[in-house]
Every structure is written in C-alpha cells, then in structure tokens.
C-alpha cells in the first residue's frame, strides 16, 4: 500500500468496515456456492431440456402478467392513498402492506378461502361462469399479484407524495381536467417511482413460491413456475435444482440490470 496522506473522509471506521464486508460475504457466498456446485459438464444438455424451458416461460409470463395487474390496480390505489382524504385512510394504508409481512403460505390459504372452488367468491365464479382459479395458470398470476402488489403501491405512493401538487394546479389553470392532468402531468412526473415499483414487483412475483404452491398447486406446464420446479427437483435430482437456480438467478440479474440501466438512470 502506498503511504499517501488522505483526508479523514476517505477512511472508513473499522467498526463499520468489518460488518459491511461480513454482510457482503453473507449475501454472496451462497450464490458462489451455487455456481461452484453446478454440474458444468452436463449443464448444456440439462439447460435445454423441455422441463426447464417450460418452467422458465411460465415464470416469465406469470410474473409479467402479475406486474401488469399490479400496475393497473396499484397505481390508482397509490393515488387514492396519497391524494384522497377519507376516514380510515391510515388503516387502509396499513392493510395494503399486510401481504408484505404475511407469510406467503398464509396468503395462499386466504386466497383459497375466497377464490377456491368452495370459497366466498370462487363458488359464484364456478356456479355462474363454470370458471375456477385454483390450479390454473391464472391462479398463479393471482397469487403472484397478491403478494407483489404492496411493493408497487408503496413505491408509487412515495413518488406521489414527493411530487409537487402545484404542477397539477398549473395544468388545471391551462384547462386540463383531472384525468388529462393525471395522464399528462402526474404520471410522467412519478415515472421513475412507477418503474422502480414495477421492477420490485416483477422480481417479487418471479420468486413467488408459498402463495403459488398453496393456491395454484404444482402442475408441470400449468402452474409449475421456476421456484416450484427448483423445490420439486431438489427432492428427485439435486443437480437439476442447481441448474434451474442458476437460470433463475441469471434471468433476474439480466432483467433487473437492463431495466435499471434503461429506465431508472435514463429518467434522472
């Protein structure tokens, strides 16, 4: 090491540096272990097996659809929480975040009780439309959206609260109604928050396991997403589980990194 003199700002106290490095190791070592244990010789053949592709396609499709649902329902909900004042708003706000802390399995059970074939709403759906959500791909999307929506709502609500409402007033004085103002002024100004929320939401949906397996079961090609496939493979063929895990890891990193690059930094 060179003995250059440095200002105090460049030095980190050891008390912080040690736990910081330990934390980094804690996060990275399991991932390195995953790569170390990978059956590299047989990897290509396993990677291009139909099962892997099926699970991956299903995962990407369901996470994307779930994110779209969250955007369509979550942005208006965030707007309601940020801008409207109504009795019990604090309570509603707390309830919205419940799926964040709820064990996903419990969420799955709750969904079954409401949307299951004997559930409060599910029974009607079955009776009137002959339509049932559990154990279908649509069920996977519902389970993922349920768990992931709070991420979007919280992120968008924060962006809305930080946005200056006077720009909306300026739009109103220019003759823009509320809907036009929302589309042309409010939404563009909170775009970074929406994108960040959607990315978090998508990532959470992609990794969803508990609610999905409880509500939608584990039917290959229909409801077996990547996390479910990993769990299934672990019991029969651990090598496959490792391969699936690496694929899931790569897809997540590539998508998150590219979205960050394109959107979050581009909008600043």
């Amino acid at each position, binding site marked *: 090491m060179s003995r250059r003199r440095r200002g105090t700002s460049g030095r980190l106290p050891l008390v912080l540096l040690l736990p910081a490095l330990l934390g980094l190791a804690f996060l990275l070592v399991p991932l390195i272990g995953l790569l170390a244990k990978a059956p590299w010789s047989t990897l290509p053949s396993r990677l291009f097996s139909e099962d892997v592709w099926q699970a991956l396609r299903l995962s990407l499709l369901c996470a994307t659809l779930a994110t779209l649902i969250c955007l369509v329902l979550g942005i208006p909900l965030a707007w309601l929480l940020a801008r409207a004042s109504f009795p019990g708003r604090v309570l509603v706000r707390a309830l919205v975040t419940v799926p964040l802390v709820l064990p996903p399995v419990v969420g799955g059970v709750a969904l079954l009780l409401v949307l299951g074939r004997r559930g409060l709403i599910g029974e009607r759906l079955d009776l009137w439309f002959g339509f049932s959500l559990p154990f279908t791909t649509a069920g996977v999307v519902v389970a993922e959206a349920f768990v992931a929506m709070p991420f979007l709502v919280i992120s968008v609500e924060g962006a809305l609260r930080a946005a*200056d409402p*006077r*720009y909306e*007033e*300026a*739009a*109103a*004085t*220019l*003759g*823009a*109604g509320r809907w*036009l103002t929302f589309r*042309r*002024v409010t939404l*563009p*100004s909170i*775009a970074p928050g929406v994108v960040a929320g959607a990315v978090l939401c998508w990532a959470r949906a992609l990794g969803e396991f508990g609610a999905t397996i409880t509500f939608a079961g584990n039917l290959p090609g229909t409801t077996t997403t990547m996390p479910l496939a990993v769990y299934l493979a672990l019991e029969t063929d651990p090598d496959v589980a490792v391969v699936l895990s690496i694929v899931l890891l790569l897809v997540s990193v590539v998508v998150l990194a590219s979205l960050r690059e394109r959107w979050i930094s581009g909008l600043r």
Partner: protein
Amino acid sequence: MTLYADVRVSRGAFDLALDLKIEPGEVVALLGPNGAGKTTALRAIAGLLPVDEGRVALDGEVWDEPPRVFRAPDRRPIGVVFQDYLLFNHLSALENVAFGLRARGVDKQVARGEAMRWLEAVGLASFARARPRSLSGGQAQRVALVRALATSPEVLLLDEPLAALDASTTLHVRAELGQHLGRFEGRTLLVTHDPLDAMVLADRLVIVENGRVVQEGRPTEIARRPRTDYVAQLVGLNLYRGNASGTTVALADGGTITLAEPASGPVHVAFPPTAVSLYVDPPSGSPRNTWPAVVTGIEQHAHTVRVRLSATPTGPETLLADITPAAVADLHLSPGQPLHATLKATEIHTYPS
C-alpha cells in the same frame, strides 16, 4: 365584460376580504407585504381555492358563489403565471406552450403551430425543443407567460412574475412583460410585493394589508398621497396623521409640524426624505420646523444616505432624511448621535385623511 371578485376567505386567524373590479385591457396590481393575502386572492379567482363567501364573476358569468356555484379552474377562461413558473419538466418548451390548447381539444399540429408563433413572439423559437430545466430564468419566465397567453384567456393572473429573476434580468424582462400586458385585451391581475413592478406595469394599484384593501388608485396618486405607513415606506415618503388648524398640524403621535399653506381638520402630512436637512448645531434664523433628533440608523442608497431619526419631542416621532455621503462625513454621523433636523415647509404635501 368586467371581472368582479368579491373574495372572502378565512383560514384560522387569517381573514381575507377583498373587492376587486377589473375592466378589459386593464392591469391591476395587488400590492402588499408578504402574508397580506395577495396570492390567496389570486388563487380564489383562478378557482384553485373556493371562496368562503362572496362572488367571483365575469360579467353575468358566475364562477364562484357559495354555496351553489363553483366552476373548476379548468373550466374558467384564465391564464396563470406562477411565481416559480411551474413549467412541466418532462415536456419541451413548445409542448408546454401547446398544453393549454391541447387540453381544449385543439388538434396536435394546429396547437404546435400556434405555440410556435407564441415562442417566436418572445424570441424563443430556437428553444422550442429545449427542456424547461435548460432555460435561463428570463427564458423560463417568457415561456410561462406565453403558455398562459396561448389559450387567449379572458383573465390573466400573474403571481410575483418577476420575483424569481436576478436583478440584471429583471429590468429587461419587466419591460418586455409591460409590452405584452399592453397588447393583451383581457383583464390582468398582477400580484407583487415590489412597488416598482406595480408602478411600472399596472394601470391601477390595490394595496392590501392583513387581508384588507388599505388604498386604491392610479400609481401617481398613490406615490404622491400614501395613506398608510406601509404605502409611505413603499414609495419612500415620511407620512404622519394629525389635526390641522391654520398652518399648524398637531400630530397624532405627539409633536407639531408647521405648514406653508393653511389646512383644517384630520389630514395626512407627507414629505420626501430629501426635504429634511441635518445639522450638528441648532441652525440660525430659526426655520419653523426645527427639531432635536437622535440618529437610529444609517443606510447607503444609490447616491444618497438615508438616515433614520427618532425621539423628537416637539416634532414627528420618527423621521427619514436623505443626505449626501459628503454630508455624512461632515456630520461624523453615528447611531445615537444627537442632531438638529429641519424640514422645508414648501415640500410638505397635505391631504385630508
């Protein structure tokens, strides 16, 4: 069509009650200290704040009359220039100016063509594609002005339109704003705390203090005959209230002033600080208005020095005097110094209160 605004708004301890009337082509300045309620009045006319009581109407067209009528801002023919302009940062200058026309359902190409003509009118055609953030203060102000004018509003509302500019640009932008307001055929309300902006730009001044109109009139009238201490301070005059009898005025706060011409009854007495002279020794020949005084403050103005004086038991309680820097040196002025102040009776302006 005349804009009538009888605006009454209560917010806790603050209470605003203003009665305004603006004719077509007229520029009215609402002038007052911070917190006087000027911006509240502007927001009420724009519809951003409903009035609690009163009525806002453009001739027979009622905009706000509680409890029945309230027309939302987007349905009022108004244009607003906000203090910090509030240009939409995600839109170009051109799109900002076209926004109002687009919101009124004008075709995109037509709206852009119209917006371009407005930008050309303020010499900003080459900045059409620029984002508001990249514009200078003066440029942003002009974009905000033409954005408000592009929809051909009946009422133009300007909230401290020059306050965000630095001193060097203000002069130029103020002159340009004056030209645009001169051409504008609708009614203009200019809210400002700067007497110079108000004097230069407005046809009529309405002075507001603590939510009430304290004086109203043409700029020249207000500059000559202030009616409150705030207005006197704005136009740089010494102002006192008193009771006149012959050539003597007994001031309300004690002391007397002698006039050149007789008056009677309750009067305002006003004179410029330049009418006051200061001496170390009592002046000989004994002019009628000579009082002992104590220096309380000294401020450098452009080419003169303004001296604040107090405690003149036989004259006004406080007094402003403008003297030359040379006189400051001759007198060795310092706070707390006792002096003699004299006032030329011929420069006193007296009018009924």
